[in-house]
């Protein structure tokens, strides 16, 4: 049986007692937590309970979760504890608590997709990635908040406003908002999000963690409530690059239930983490790094990142991809239209039950003429070809993940009252992430520093299709040479006085 946490938080499950606070345990990497669990120095029950305690303390403000599976997670943790004690250790994810974007179906646990419309939907099956995480011994701790139906642009969140743990007045990124908040705030060890045009990388960037959009076809989409069938991907959000590689190793691979998954063998992603960049050719994408409007602190942080990468042995050149600027409207004219086509019946009958940002975006996409859709699909192929051609001259493309630090929540809302709003709020803010969704290549976002006000900044690395090992290698080398990933938000400081206010509000939302 596990011991109860002592006055300092966590105590050891085995003979060797650890002197570690619950906060320190919560913010260890998955690799570190996994080793402690394997060696029975930490019980999975203690780790899960630590996350649940933090959710209870902080999530009334942060709103990372829509549903918390407290009792189920604790029961799983006790089962894992027995398995490991009996010598059945499954690997680095055994006993690790994780969350999933509430767009991925979970058997017996409601899957709301962030909406009022599906608020009571309880699937009788698991998404393929959930099945795989569970098979690896990971413990599902909850379903994470998101922009409604996974479409960035929600104005009013039916399940609560997600808040950035570094500064709760700031945006937490879209659309896998809760999946970025939760690992950043120590409310789980890692998450699974979904990325069409930047929905994993955006929250990773905003919350100061690591997010991967994998190559389309690398991870099964089975069981995801998502209809952007030419661009949707499911990817991990974690606190370190190594953790991200561990998560991807668990969820990648062919699945007969998703006929667009690749049959390529899944490589050893953690084996690529050499820390060495000698001979690696990196190219800075001019339009995504030095674009008009890049925030001066983003520019400075990126320039410093380039120096670090050079010191690590990378060869860095500049490169122009002028057609990438078209990726956002092209995705909205095509992928959005694919999604909207599935929602027209609901738009007809339940218009007011959608958030205004979602319903206007979907209605817009539903009205794209077929001839325009077809031409836009051709243009996507043209833009993609330009991006792929770049990989003939380099191993990876680099840029900031976003041109600005996380905006104030109010400023990030996609209110559309003029053509200027469309350009500023819908298109320009996505200029760095959508091109890689258009190209369907792997892209990694990872911490690149902080503004003077303590807001996270993020570096983006993209590579050719199925070259996840390359983005991990570059990201891991950079991460090791910096200390950004070791910095975590001081929630007692950043969330005051909202914590006191939330204590009288809804509080802890358990599903069980």
């Amino acid at each position: 049986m596990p011991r109860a946490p002592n006055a300092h938080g966590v105590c050891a499950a085995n003979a060797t007692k650890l002197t570690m606070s619950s906060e320190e345990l919560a913010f260890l990497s998955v690799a570190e937590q996994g080793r402690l669990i394997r060696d029975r120095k930490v019980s999975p029950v203690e780790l899960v309970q630590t996350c649940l305690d933090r959710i209870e303390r902080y999530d009334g403000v942060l709103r990372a979760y829509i549903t918390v599976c407290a009792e189920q997670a604790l029961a799983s943790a006790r089962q894992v504890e027995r398995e490991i004690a009996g010598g059945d250790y499954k690997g680095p994810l055994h006993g690790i608590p994780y969350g999933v974007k509430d767009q991925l179906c979970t058997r017996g646990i409601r899957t709301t997709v962030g909406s009022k419309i599906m608020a009571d939907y309880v699937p009788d099956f698991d998404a393929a990635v959930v099945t795989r995480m569970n098979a690896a011994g990971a413990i599902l701790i909850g379903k994470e908040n998101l922009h409604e139906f996974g479409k960035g642009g929600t104005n009013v969140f039916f399940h609560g406003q997600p808040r950035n743990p570094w500064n709760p007045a700031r945006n937490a990124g879209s659309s896998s908002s809760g999946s970025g908040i939760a690992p950043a705030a120590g409310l789980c060890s890692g998450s699974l999000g979904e990325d069409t045009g930047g929905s994993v990388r955006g929250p990773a960037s905003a919350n100061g963690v690591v997010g991967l959009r994998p190559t389309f076809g690398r991870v099964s989409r089975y069981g995801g409530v998502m209809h952007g069938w030419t661009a949707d991907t499911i990817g991990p959000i974690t606190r370190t690059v190594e953790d991200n590689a561990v998560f991807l190793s668990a969820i990648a691979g062919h699945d007969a239930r998703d006929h667009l998954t690749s049959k390529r063998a899944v490589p050893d992603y953690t084996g690529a983490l050499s820390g060495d960049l000698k001979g690696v050719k990196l190219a800075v994408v001019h339009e995504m790094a030095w674009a008009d409007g890049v925030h001066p602190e983003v520019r400075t942080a990126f320039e410093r990142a380039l120096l670090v990468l050079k010191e690590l042995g990378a060869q860095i050149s500049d490169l122009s991809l002028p057609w990438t600027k078209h990726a956002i409207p092209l995705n909205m004219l095509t992928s959005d239209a694919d999604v909207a086509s599935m929602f027209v019946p609901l738009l007809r009958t339940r218009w007011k039950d959608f958030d205004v940002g979602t319903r206007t975006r979907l209605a817009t996409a539903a009205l794209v003429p077929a001839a325009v859709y077809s031409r836009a699909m051709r243009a996507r192929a043209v833009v993609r070809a330009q991006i792929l051609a770049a990989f003939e001259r380099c191993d990876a493309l680099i840029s900031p993940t976003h041109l600005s630090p996380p905006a104030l929540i109010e400023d990030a809302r996609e209110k559309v009252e003029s053509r200027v709003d469309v350009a500023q709020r819908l298109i320009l803010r996505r200029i760095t992430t959508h091109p890689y969704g258009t190209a369907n290549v792997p892209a990694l976002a990872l911490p690149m520093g902080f503004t003077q006000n303590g807001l996270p900044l993020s570096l983006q690395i993209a590579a050719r299709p199925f070259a996840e090992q390359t983005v991990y290698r570059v990201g891991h080398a950079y991460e090791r040479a910096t200390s950004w990933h070791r910095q975590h938000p001081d929630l007692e400081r950043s969330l005051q006085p909202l914590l006191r206010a939330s204590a009288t509000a809804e509080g802890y939302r358990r599903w069980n």
Partner: protein
Amino acid sequence: MELTCEQLAAMAATIGLNLPAADAENVRLRLSALLTEMEGIERELGAEMDRTEPVPPVYPHEPS
């Protein structure tokens, strides 16, 4: 491309959508902007688009 309110309503009617007045202007602005963007894309990439088939970049047939 600047759609009128009447044009938007007619387009919406073809798929059975009756856009409430409070949201119609929002949709009109969005769709007009996207169609304008597409006009620019046609000017810049049209010739290349004519030579390119609109095959989605998905990977169902990779070798095992």
